């Protein structure tokens, strides 16, 4: 190819073939089904559970199972329609975990869906807006998910009750999605503070995605040029005893644990989706 031909190739945007239009349609369809699914559950299964299961803990546990299975169906739908797929490594570790904090980087909108689809039960710290979102409010309330805007004492005491009962808590240390074209956003210290209070171990899930897509503020119809591929890598737990220096005061310990988490993810994310060094 001559230089001129290369320049021309760069100048023309990629041609939008049939596959692109199909994925656009399928993406819209999938997101609609997601919202509808949330509403349907909120008006059928969850109210039924309110009547059948009197025990709140039991009810939440089953609600979480319903959510995880619902996500699994949704992920299957994404896969068969060619929108997105997920590959996993060491996912058994996640299923076997009890009373641990599951922490993940947050490149896209669907990370939590991809991760929970692999599990049977999980507690989550979710952004407070979801409690007012008409499609999701019923779901997050039924599952008893933890609000991220609650006052910190409340959040930590709720988290420690859940961990104590053997539940795992999924939380994104960044607190929101990773900004576009960045490996990792700035970490909040919430995870560290929960761990300090509860001495829970941290199970890291490194989320790799082949496209820079589904970012905050980017409309759903701006779809990537090919199927979205996720790779979820579960690693050995970071034991709290190993990463925490007991001589530090609370504030310094929170900072040091947060730095360890940050370095851990940055280290793992030096390799991209395809396993190439970046």
């Amino acid at each position, binding site marked *: 190819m001559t230089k001129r031909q290369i320049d021309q190739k760069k100048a023309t945007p990629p041609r939008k073939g049939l596959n692109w239009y199909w994925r656009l349609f399928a993406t819209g369809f999938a997101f609609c089904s997601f919202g509808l699914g949330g509403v349907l559950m909120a008006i059928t299964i969850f109210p039924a559970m309110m009547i059948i299961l009197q025990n709140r803990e039991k009810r939440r546990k089953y609600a979480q199972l319903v959510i995880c299975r619902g996500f699994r169906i949704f992920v299957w739908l994404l896969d068969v329609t060619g929108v997105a797929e997920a590959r996993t490594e060491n996912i058994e570790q996640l299923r076997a975990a009890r009373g641990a904090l599951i922490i993940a980087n947050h490149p896209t909108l669907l990370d939590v869906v991809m991760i929970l689809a692999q599990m049977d039960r999980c507690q989550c710290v979710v952004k407070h807006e979801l409690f007012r979102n008409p499609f999701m409010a019923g779901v997050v309330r039924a599952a008893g998910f933890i609000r991220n805007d609650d*006052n910190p*004492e409340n959040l930590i005491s709720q988290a420690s009750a859940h961990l104590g009962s053997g539940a795992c808590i999924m939380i994104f240390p960044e607190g929101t999605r990773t900004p576009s074209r960045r490996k990792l956003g700035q970490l909040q*210290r919430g995870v560290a503070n929960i761990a300090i209070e509860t001495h829970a171990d941290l199970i890291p899930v490194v989320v790799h995605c082949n496209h820079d897509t589904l970012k905050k503020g980017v409309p759903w119809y701006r779809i990537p040029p090919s199927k979205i591929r996720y790779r979820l890598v579960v690693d050995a737990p970071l034991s709290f005893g190993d990463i925490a220096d007991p001589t530090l005061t*609370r*504030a*310094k310990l929170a900072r040091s644990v947060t730095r360890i988490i940050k370095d851990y993810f940055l280290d793992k994310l030096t390799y991209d989706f395809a396993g190439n060094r970046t």
Partner: protein
Amino acid sequence: MHSREDVYQQLHDYLVELFEVPAENITPDARLFEDLDLDSIDAVDLIVKFQEITGKKIPAMEFRSVRTVDDVVEKIHVLVSS
């Protein structure tokens, strides 16, 4: 710890020693959360520290409206001089 300057100095020392804030970032109008990277749990720790040193109960509600270093100094100063 009576003058405003004393309170400021004490707060400055706490920020550096307890919360690893670089001294050069601390100015009267530096915002605690955005500029100095404190979070709400740190704020509670800070209130407890000032309670210990002043011997006065500091209602957490008082600190709801606090945004900057100077706001903290003002609140504490009013409390100790009352």
